[in-house]
């Protein structure tokens, strides 16, 4: 039995279990009329306060955007980590460190720019 055959068994089985759960729930539960309360989001029984769809401050997006970019930049550190041991063994560690330093400096220049432009101020 290879990987796909399992899938064929699982699909109907999964559907059956989920369907059965909903069906028994429907049998057992108490029926109430439609009401505003019933259509509310379920927050563990607490009465909800306000709408879930609120506007965020635009500053939030700025933070998010900056975070995403700098976060993704760090991707480039992974390949370096992968070859680090080999480079050190062949005595190229200083070169590598220098390259990394330049990379980080460029990144921090970007951050400094954003900072000076006031992108990091919350209000």
């Amino acid at each position, binding site marked *: 039995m290879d990987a796909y055959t399992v899938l064929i068994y699982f699909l109907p089985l999964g559907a059956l279990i989920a369907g059965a759960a909903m069906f028994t729930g429907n049998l057992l539960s108490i029926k109430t009329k439609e009401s505003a309360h019933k259509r509310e989001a379920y927050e563990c029984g607490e009465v909800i306060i306000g709408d879930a769809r609120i506007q965020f401050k635009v500053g939030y997006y700025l933070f998010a955007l900056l975070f995403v970019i700098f976060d993704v930049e760090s991707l480039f550190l992974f390949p370096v980590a992968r070859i680090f041991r080999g480079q050190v063994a062949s005595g190229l560690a200083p070169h590598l460190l220098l390259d990394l330093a330049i990379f980080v400096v*460029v990144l921090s*220049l970007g951050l*400094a*720019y954003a900072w*000076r*432009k006031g992108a990091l101020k919350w209000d």
Partner: protein
Amino acid sequence: MSLYLILSILGALVLLSSLGRGKRLVVPLAIAGLLGALAVTGMGLGLDHPLLKGMAEFDRYAVLFSCLLLVLGTLVVLLLTNPNERSDIPRVEMAALLLFSLTGGIMMASFAHLVMLFLGVEILSIPLYILAGARKRERAGNEAALKYFITGSFATGFLLFGIALIYGATGSFSTRAIAAWAEANPAVFTPMFHLGLLLMLVGLAFKISAAPFHFWAPDVYEGSPSIVTSFMSTVVKVAAIAAFYRLFSEAFPAAADAWSWVIAAVAALTLAVGNLGALAQRSFKRLMAYSGISHAGFLLLALLSVGPGSAGALWIYAAAYSFATLIAFVSLLAVEAAGGGESLEALSGLGRRNPFLGVCLTISMLSLIGVPPLAGFFGKLFVFGNAVSQRHVVLVVFAVVMSAVGMAYYMRPIIQTWLRPPAGSPFQLSTSQAWVLGIATAFVVLLAAAPVWVMRFL
């Protein structure tokens, strides 16, 4: 030190200097830097040296196109110093963004590896998405930026998928390795290779605004500030066609059967759409957008006839087109600054309001028509000549007829300039505008002497 480094450091310097004092010196600094870069490139330093472990190569083709891009970029940055220029982004930042974009363009002219092509395309485009919307509070600018962004990213998606498929088929991103693979397997192009080739073609066709991937161009050109539009219609188009030609002549010459028919069809459609569309325009800016589309069609003809001399023909055509187009946009900027709008009527009596501008604009339009002995004529001569020698006679006949249609709309600015009563009082050009006009016009006139030199250099 490579051109990439010079330009990106220059861009970063300009950007960071916007934080400190002495902003006034920044743009002159950028121009000086660009001229230095031009000198370095023009002297052929670093010629034929593989860069970045062979991912890029400054061969003669790359040097020639880089010089063209640098000159065009310098002229556009020079225009930025015009005191009347209005935008919501500080001028210094605009200059930095233009420099970054230019770096991308030069990468596109010199890549030898598809990663560099992709990075070039993106570095070229991303600053432009910002610049297109430089006037933040104008809805037209917003719309232009958003349209450019969405259609541009969509096209990038196709380009990337194409690259991935080519990689899957050939196992490499290097143009040489791809060409070697295609040569070694001439008969059995796998569907993967074929599909990848065509998708890459689509992605690049978008960048040069070839039909049916041209729809963004008129809207984006119209909505962006004119100075940004001048950059888009010159530097971006030259970079895109340079990359297009470089890719197809270096990586896929052996697969010509698989793509030449597509280029032929796209070129014909582009010629029709560009020329006919321009005929119906009332705004000079939109007219130039359609003119850009139509010239993309002519440029594709050069691509169709890859062979000895075709790269030179492409360069001459691209240079002739972009200098003439730059003149048109400077005229537009000057007229806008003098209180006119973007309509053709705003050019009325320009010849009497500012004779120098009128003469330059007329020369530019005549060159775009292809009147000898201006540069545009030689562009057409060589491009058509090459295409005829490659037996694309029907397409050339069609192109010639379409350039006949082109005459009808390029004459309209000339008629407005000389035969209509002035739309306003005489006005002065700003110093930078006068310089840019003078230099660009000199190129349009003097490039007539260049063909020999270019052909010999390549």
